[in-house]
């Protein structure tokens, strides 16, 4: 194939994970032209049919999502007794699921924003679907506190509004902080995601072959023409929102941690919870991407854009975050021992050897031990090792929330009030259903929205930076 001036090419299967100190890395394999980037991404949306495997995945996910909504209906009409929640464990699976999903929800925006602020060019391959996971995880997370209040039709009482009863939310309660924080975060993350898509939506508008498609993408792209003025304002807006989103994510994930940490219950009252929840959010986000990126690029033929180097970097950061999470676990154990307090020590002994020992050990092994395999390059480059590691990390993070919420409060200060928590089939069904909802939305996103940020990938191609040294492996 003849390439235009400055366009370069390496084979699609080119190993770009090698270390070359002098040359910048290759971040797109195959023919690295603007046109090919547009074609690779747009054809997924423009094709009359999705790839064959998309359909069974979608129907399975949609079925589980349907189960979730059916169970919500059952819970609303029957009452919260359908769950395993009982005194002293009033939080149960709904709040575990909420904290689990809100952790993933924090990750996508944070990943995208932080990588933007740190000038990490490889972010362009993964940022769009990282942000998408944020939005869909927020949807999953938001459902659970809404139904956990018992009478969801009164959930609006959380909002401060003037009323004839003179009721006003108690702002000393972290649950109120949480509602406001998550609400704000949802708004900003949707804005960040949508703002990032505008130029690509305009590309789809300009390529549209039907009036309907042209109208829909025309409305969504908000009149984007790609003028220099547009780009100047756009770049600045994206950078400002990235800066704000980074601070916001740290604030919101820390706020979620205060649901527990402001209490006096051993196992909940830990001053390290705010950074633990933030680090855990980033960790679970990278684990999600590590798990999802392999099937996405295989199913939609995006290996040129989501290259081995992208996944190698994702795996390295997952390992890094796992190490910090593991550090916090060890500090928790150390401090409980160091406190000399019988009650602080008991909590951790109960975690490890009490009735929910399996959750604590799973937390430690899945989050702390298994990710250590990613120290090895061969493991990072092998999809059937790296992707399951991502899945283990997600399972580990769910177990971490189980340990915090269930183990601590079922064995509090008063032994006479100890009570074993047993989840019901509704609890398990809702958990599975939330995954169904997440994957339903994610699969729809992959089919109908640009899954990779086309204009951002183009901005890092060599022809966009003709003054830089040539990339490693590039034709000289």
């Amino acid at each position: 194939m003849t390439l235009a001036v400055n366009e370069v090419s390496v084979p699609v299967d080119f190993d770009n994970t090698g270390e070359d100190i002098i040359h910048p890395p290759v971040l797109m394999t195959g023919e690295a032209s603007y046109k090919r980037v547009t074609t690779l991404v747009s054809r997924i949306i423009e094709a009359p049919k999705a790839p064959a495997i998309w359909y069974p995945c979608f129907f399975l996910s949609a079925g589980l999502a349907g189960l979730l909504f059916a169970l919500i209906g059952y819970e609303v009409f029957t009452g919260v007794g359908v769950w395993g929640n009982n005194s002293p464990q009033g939080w149960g699976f709904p709040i575990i699921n909420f904290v689990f999903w809100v952790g993933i929800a924090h990750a996508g925006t944070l990943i995208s924003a932080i990588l933007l602020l740190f000038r990490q060019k490889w972010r362009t391959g993964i940022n769009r679907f990282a942000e998408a996971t944020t939005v869909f995880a927020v949807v999953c997370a938001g459902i659970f506190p809404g139904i956990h209040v018992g009478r969801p039709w009164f959930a609006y009482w959380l909002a401060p509004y003037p009323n004839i009863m003179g009721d006003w939310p108690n702002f000393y309660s972290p649950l109120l902080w949480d509602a406001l924080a998550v609400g704000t975060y949802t708004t900003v993350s949707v804005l960040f995601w949508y703002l990032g898509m505008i130029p690509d939506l305009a590309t789809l508008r300009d390529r549209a072959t039907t009036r309907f498609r042209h109208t829909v993408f025309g409305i969504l792209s908000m009149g984007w023409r790609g003028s220099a003025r547009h780009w100047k304002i756009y770049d600045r807006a994206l950078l400002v929102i990235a800066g704000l989103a980074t601070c916001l994510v740290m604030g919101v994930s820390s706020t979620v941690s205060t649901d527990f940490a402001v209490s006096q219950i051993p196992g909940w009252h830990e001053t390290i919870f705010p950074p633990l929840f933030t680090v855990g959010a980033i960790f679970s986000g990278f684990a999600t991407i590590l798990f999802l990126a392999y099937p996405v690029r295989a199913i939609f033929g995006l290996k040129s854009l989501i290259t081995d180097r992208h996944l190698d970097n994702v795996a390295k950061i997952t390992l890094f975050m796992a190490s910090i999470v593991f550090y916090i676990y060890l500090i928790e154990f150390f401090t409980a021992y160091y406190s000399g307090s019988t009650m602080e020590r008991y909590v951790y002994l109960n975690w490890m050897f009490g009735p929910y020992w399996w959750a604590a050990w799973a937390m430690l092994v899945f989050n702390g031990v298994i990710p250590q395999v990613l120290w090895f390059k061969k493991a990072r480059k092998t999809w059937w090792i790296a992707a399951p590691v991502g899945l283990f990390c997600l399972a580990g993070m769910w177990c971490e929330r189980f340990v915090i919420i269930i183990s601590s409060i079922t064995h509090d200060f008063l032994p006479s009030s100890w009570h074993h928590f047993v989840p019901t089939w509704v609890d398990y069904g809702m958990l599975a259903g939330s995954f169904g909802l997440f994957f339903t939305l994610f699969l729809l996103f992959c089919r109908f929205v640009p899954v990779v940020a086309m204009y951002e990938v183009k901005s890092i191609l060599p022809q966009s930076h003709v003054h830089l040294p040539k990339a490693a492996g590039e034709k000289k």
Partner: protein
Amino acid sequence: MNDASQQIIKLGSRDELYLQNAGTRWMGIFAGIGIVALAAAFGVGASLHDHLRQFYFSYLTAWIFCFAIAASALFFVIGHHLFKSSWSSVVRRLAEGLAGNFVPLLVLFLPIIPGMRQLYPWMSRMYMNSSPDLHNKIGFLNPQFFALRMALYAAALIGISLYMRSASLRQDQDGKVKRLLNLQWHSAWCYLTIFWVINLVGADLVMTLQPTWISYIEPAFFFAATGMMVYAVLPLLAMALQAGGRLKDIITAEHYEDMGRWLYAWAMFWTYLGFAQYMLIWYANKPDETMNYLIRDMGPWVIITIVLFLGHFIIPLFGMLPRQCKRVKPLLAFWCIWLLFFGYLDFFERIQPQVWSATAAGRKAMAGVHKFNPYALPHSLAGLAWMPLHPAALLTSLLCLVGLVSLLLAHTFYLLQKGALLPIRDPKLPESIAFENF
């Protein structure tokens, strides 16, 4: 591989890249100041007739401050390799010089040893047997295990810093890219090791000053206070060298801006962890936790607490925000000195209020932690808590600080004059020199 001499010609003359005789001169000046200041600190401390109690606390505060500079510099160097950073290549050698101070720091730790019993109540077995909670900690808080831990920390810090610097200097000689690749390869485990060591030094040397107090976040909070230091010292060191005609066109406003941004980010990170600790302890209101803040809420200490909050967070939050504050050298120098001062004040407030617990009466009050009420302390004991703020005590602290920082700088100049002020054969150096912020 490029010839080293050719690169040197491109970078500038030998006078611009090496300290040469100026290094010896500055080394002598700082060493002289350091010795005189420490001798004076000892003299003033002895004149307080408190069995050198205040001197030990002042010395420990200054030592922690110097440790923070060296440890953060080492963390910076390892991070540079781990993240394959290019902008920071021009200041890497200066950071390696600051990070090479762990052997002198180990020597300078020796004067603390005779004061251990004054500084750390847990050195007394009788004290540790005074309450069940304290008794439960004897497995960790005992002199033998403490010495073993310190030896391990020293071995890790000295070993890793020597490796980082020697490999870098050897690359100046032979120009092998493999050395840089090796440094990058080893940086991952070194990064985690040093992260742990800094956290544990904070737990061992600062948190245990008050053995009845715990906070899960305190080691990480100490790490945040430590990590900021290098970004305050590096720009000042670079400016001083440029004023002396070195590295003139190599370290540019672009590099200063990035160092300023990192300084800003660490100051805010410190606030984040500090607020998390304070707010959660305030909210839960447990006596074994609030005792740490109640003692800092008494008398003049509350003023220092408020000043620290304003100086380390609120004022830099807005003051450092404009881009020019990080690009214009005098403005950045002001903020570096500002945050160094507040960084020291932070360590001062972590360590020195514990002077009161170094007395028999203080230990008795602290051991009965569940009945602890600092507002009900005997007047003599409350007065003791404020002792570090008396003029003679402040002078002792100031002299200790000047003395130890001067000795640290003397050794830094000794290391810097042994090689070029830049990693002259680092393949990333051209990219680093040409670096521009977007």
